[in-house]
């Protein structure tokens, strides 16, 4: 693992030209971000912000990063998943629009596709390390890993030691503990100081938001957070419409199996699960849903899906997708009972929805790599399952994640949340907040022109009749869309 300070670390700077071409195409498909750049070009609301981002280093994220920079921020970036980086995107960001591979002038980015866990946490730490400056004053997180490193670092600095790992701790936790042990030894007090400097974090995804609420409840949260995930223009669009697009894309690129006529099991019927079931059904699969929440289960049933327990259908389905945000959904035992060459993939944020470690521990199991992010796992009895992206989110690992237009919605929320926390921090006390509804509506508004949508306008009388301002917000906070 490299330890010397470097300005950035990506796979191959020569990919920058290709990355820049794709960024140019993506900018056209991300009208929200481009509108924000235009709106704030003069006022530069993020001047003075030092933003550390931990978010999938894709082409769309490149447009986000350059939008933050265009609003005056300094930015350092890592990916939030070992497989999700698009190397040409990382290269283009490092080189920058005005640099060349020989003379890069871009933004410090630490990300490449196929990092080891050690490399991953090194990258995260690099993004949090601001040479010559007192660390970041803003975090932009996706899954909460940057937030976690700062909080755990500060916690261990307070207790004076990094705890010893337990026997059954996941492998990744051991890597985190090792990284923090080295950090505490090298620069004691560093994370405590970093935490104090940070004005707040804007969190992208369900899993990270869940962590934040847990910390807030436990009283351990050290700075205010904006839950970007639960903006309507994020969760509905990114989770539902984005996954609807990219799930099937990922399965097709990985396996090219005909989805029509197959039986697919989707675990979880939240926004992500709803999008997944819709796209699989659209391809002609018969979709079965598993759920623990009676409301979501009832929704699935009312939408015409069979709702079953995984153990009752595990031996008859062809495709399995986890979308729960929970862990140990598909166990090694489940996989051992699946049909020969059943396809197993996860679209939830973390790789613990499918018990890959348990699979690897099964006696006599054999792994055969078919191609990148596609593995055949053969059991002792000779039958096999196909696991996508090693159980990590397959829409990013096997395809290119959400399309630009969807990401424009969620990333415009991110930029607005960063502006809110950085410029109006006094309105966001310690705790977890969602963006006010008028900003959510603003994000949607910024995307209408690109689709040729002609919005109607309330008359004054109509607005009075339902008791809302003519210009919105139009719905009560609890409205579910």
């Amino acid at each position, binding site marked *: 693992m490299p330890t010397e300070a470097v300005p950035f670390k990506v796979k191959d700077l020569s990919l920058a030209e290709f990355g820049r071409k794709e960024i140019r195409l993506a900018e056209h498909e991300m009208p929200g971000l481009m509108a924000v750049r235009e709106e704030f070009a003069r006022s530069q609301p993020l001047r003075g912000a030092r933003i550390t981002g931990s978010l999938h280093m894709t082409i769309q994220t490149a447009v986000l990063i350059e939008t933050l920079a265009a609003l005056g921020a300094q930015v350092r970036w890592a990916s939030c998943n070992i497989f999700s980086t698009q190397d040409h995107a990382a290269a283009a960001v490092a080189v920058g629009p005005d640099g060349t591979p020989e003379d890069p002038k871009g933004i410090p980015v630490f990300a490449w596709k196929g990092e080891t866990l050690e490399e991953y946490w090194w990258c995260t730490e690099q993004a949090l390390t601001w040479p010559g400056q007192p660390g970041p004053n803003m975090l932009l997180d996706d899954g909460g890993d940057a937030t976690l490193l700062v909080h755990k670092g500060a916690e261990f600095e307070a207790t004076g030691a990094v705890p010893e790992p337990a026997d059954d701790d996941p492998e990744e936790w051991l890597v985190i503990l090792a990284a923090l042990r080295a950090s505490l030894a090298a620069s004691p007090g560093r994370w405590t100081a970093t935490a104090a400097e940070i004005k707040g974090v804007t969190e992208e995804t369900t899993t990270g938001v869940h962590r934040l609420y847990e910390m807030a409840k436990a009283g351990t949260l050290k700075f205010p957070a904006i839950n970007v995930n639960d903006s309507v223009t994020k969760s509905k669009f990114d989770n539902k419409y984005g996954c609807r697009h990219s799930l099937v894309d990922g399965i097709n690129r990985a396996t090219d199996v005909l989805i*029509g*006529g197959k*039986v697919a099991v989707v675990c979880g019927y939240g926004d992500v699960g709803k999008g997944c079931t819709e796209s699989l*059904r659209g*391809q*002609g*699969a*018969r*979709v079965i849903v598993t759920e623990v929440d009676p409301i979501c289960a*009832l929704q699935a*049933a*009312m*939408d*015409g*899906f*069979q709702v079953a327990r995984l153990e009752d259908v595990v031996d008859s389905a062809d495709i399995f997708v986890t979308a729960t945000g929970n862990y140990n959904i598909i166990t090694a035992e489940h996989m051992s009972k699946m049909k020969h060459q059943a396809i197993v993939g996860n679209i939830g944020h973390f790789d613990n929805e499918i018990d890959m470690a348990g699979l690897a521990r099964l006696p006599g199991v054999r792994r055969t790599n078919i191609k990148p992010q596609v593995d055949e796992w053969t059991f002792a009895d000779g039958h096999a399952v196909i696991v996508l992206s090693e159980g990590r989110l397959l829409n990013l690992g096997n395809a290119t994640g959400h399309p630009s237009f969807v990401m424009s919605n969620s990333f415009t929320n991110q930029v607005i949340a960063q502006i809110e926390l950085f410029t109006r921090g006094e309105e966001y006390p310690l705790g977890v907040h969602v963006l006010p509804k008028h900003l959510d509506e603003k994000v949607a508004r910024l995307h209408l022109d690109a689709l040729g949508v002609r919005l109607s306008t309330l008359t004054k009388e109509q607005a009075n009749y339902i008791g809302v301002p003519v210009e919105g917000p139009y719905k009560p906070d609890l409205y579910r869309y």
Partner: protein
Amino acid sequence: MTGSNRVEASDPGQVAVGQARIGWAERTMPVLGLIRDVFEREQPFAGLTVAACLHVTPETAVLVNLLTAGGAELHLAASNPLSTQDDIAAALAASPAVKVHARSGVDRRTYYEHIHRALDAGPALVIDDGCDLVNTLHTERQELLAGVRGGCESTTTGVARLRRMAAEGTLAFPMVAADDSRTRRRFDNFLGTGQSVIDGILRATNALLAGQVVIVAGYGSCGSGIAARARGLGAQVIVTEVDPDRALEALMEGFRVLPMAEAVPLGQVFITATGSRDVIGREHMAAMRDGAILANAGHFDVEVDVRALAELAVAVHPSVRPHADEYLLDDGRRLILLAEGRVVNLVAAEGNPAAVMDLSFAVQALALAWLGSREGLAGSEGRAGEDEGGGGEEGPLPAGVHDVPSEIDAQIAALALASLGTEIDALTPAQQEYLDSWRQGS
């Protein structure tokens, strides 16, 4: 013999109601309207007697009025003992050119009596829906066969019977399988029946289909339409089939496909659309869930074995709702049979929507005019196999089952587009030449 039986409609006071409903149907059947303009001018049926056996609905009335406007003398019997709408029968009976022999809720004997009365005048052309009229002609009224130039058959079931008659060499005149036209299969079966069968079940039960497990037996052009619409309402649809092609198609559309015996314990609503018999039999009923709803979308009442159900039941509560009978089994389970196992979309709802019947009846009207225009009568010498030859441009058609001429299909689609104000492209001469040639490749 004709006059006395003429108005079998039960309540002439319903004439005004029936006429208003026929007027409504006319407004939603623009293609028949366009054809009527032509028929009124050209009188293709002048001097011809037509015997028709059709469901007596407002849409049928529009067809009947169109044929009489074209000069026909028309004798109408019902094609189902339960499907007659009496106000429509009454309104039609008020027209001097139409003799109606139909009333709702008749028994089997009266049903066939009505068919005989419609045949009494000695038809030159026939329209059938299920082949009961053509069957009666060949078995009990053979003296009339020589006068028949030909006819049309509306349903899949009827066409299947005709093909068996043709194969045996029994069919004495040409019959056009109106059922087999592209227009009909897509619009009438998939769209029309698909929608109206669901409509019938909803009216009869008021059940929420979302979340229910609906078993659709048969994935032909009707069953696939029913399955698509049940899914659209949020039902979980399971298909049963005997044909591997159709079963595979259902599977590829994402439906679960099971043998009926395995589907039975899962189903809450059962819909038969096979054209076959005993699709749901005693052993199936014995294994059904409490409250299961049984409906038939097929033409005849043989798809659900109603007799077996009656034998299985310890008590029957007729008409717990209109068109819904509750059968109580000895263990306390109740099974709900809709429309007595007869075609549910016609009995419990209003049959196919007028816009769909518009196209379907347009096929019949033009096919009938095409048959009527062939001067030579199809004599016994023409007893060729089915689908044989076109019989020359204007010569007599041989006896047998004939497809709808593709020009009629294209003509109807063009009329429908015109009625919807939709314009389409035409091939350029260069494109036509390219499509007609084989020399030009990559």
